[in-house]
């Protein structure tokens, strides 16, 4: 597999959200606005890249018996770092992402990549993989947040798109919990159809 593939795979083909349906909790919880989505995406990408890097670097040294605990420690370290840094320099974002920053630790994507990729690959591919997956995650978050913010608040990244009168009477449910599930259902449904079309075309 080429390096470019390592990088691009996570963005579309194996997108962690839309194709693998992993890390749903932060995805559903913080996509109420594009800003949050970007923040969360950046935080997760940071952790992904560095944990992939370290895991790959130490993959020969760490005994397999304590593989998972070691990865968890590595990931948790970076999560805490993000937590501290964000709190120091981006306090507002830190506040709105809330508990989902520490929860990056348990995000299946990150441990999944550490176990499933970095663990068996060289450093550079692992870093690229981390960046790709992180970007894919961020992209997916932004797509979802775009739907939710525009429908539920009439704005995109804070810019008022649909006018004052819409903002007074938006489709509020889009940014509430049920909206997240329902919109995700239709996004996945869309990918389902695309997939089927594609396969049908090949036949």
């Amino acid at each position, binding site marked *: 597999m080429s390096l470019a593939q390592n990088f691009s795979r996570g963005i579309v083909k194996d997108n962690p959200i839309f194709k693998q349906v992993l890390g749903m909790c932060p995805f559903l919880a913080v996509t109420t606005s594009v800003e949050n989505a970007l923040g969360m995406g950046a935080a997760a990408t940071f952790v992904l890249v560095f944990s992939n890097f370290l895991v790959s670097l130490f993959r020969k040294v760490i005994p397999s018996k304590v593989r998972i605990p*070691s990865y968890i*420690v590595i990931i948790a370290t970076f999560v805490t770092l993000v937590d*501290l840094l964000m709190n120091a320099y981006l306090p507002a974002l830190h506040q709105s992402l809330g508990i989902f920053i520490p929860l990056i630790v348990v995000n299946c994507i990150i441990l999944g990549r550490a176990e499933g990729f970095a663990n068996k690959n060289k450093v550079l591919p692992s870093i690229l993989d981390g960046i790709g997956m992180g970007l894919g995650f961020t992209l997916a978050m932004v797509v979802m947040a775009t739907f939710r913010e525009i429908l539920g*608040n009439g704005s995109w990244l804070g810019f008022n798109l649909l006018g004052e009168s819409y903002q007074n009477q938006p489709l*509020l449910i889009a940014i509430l919990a049920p909206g997240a599930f329902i919109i995700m259902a239709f996004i996945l449904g869309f990918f389902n159809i695309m997939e089927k079309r594609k396969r049908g075309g090949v036949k």
Partner: protein
Amino acid sequence: MGEIIRVGLMLMLVAVIAAVALGYVNSVTSPIIAEQKEQAKLAAMIDVAGSLGAGNLVFDSLSVPELANPYAGVDESLAVVAVTDSTGCDLGYLFVAYGKGYSSTVQTMIAVNTSGTVTGNTVLFQQETPGLGANVSNPAKFLYQFNGRNASTLVLKKDGGGAGGLDAITGSTITSRAVTSSVKAGLDALSDAGVIPAEGGVI
């Protein structure tokens, strides 16, 4: 046995590296976080207290022994900051009111002048429903009505305030009521303690 110890040491090593990194970053960020929190609070205080008078304001904590705590019900306490101008002349007081709203405890910072009239306010924290109670953060929707009122006129129209009462946020009586009554309770406590004049009275 040797194997076991080797594995244990390995994990310890990982943990120690993590610890060093974390300890270091924390030592760097913790003052920033503290400072930045501080600044935020201070900015809010200056902002709200700005309505009491111009120029350099001096804040000092006020300790009045007989000050009752109206917020014990939400596990908070009433703390008051006295605001003086640079000459030492009393301008008024700042305090934070805690009111249990629909889904969170709304924290409102209030500036009150020495005659017991509210002059400034801002919401420090709330997690009410977006589109409903969350509108409390938008001064134009509700809190603008507070300025110029004293404890006796802080009452919703719905709660018997009649024509002179406050208009609640549409569909969010609970939030509106929570803020109103928590502020009123703070003012009442201050006047009971003799810090500001009792209702309607003038010093």
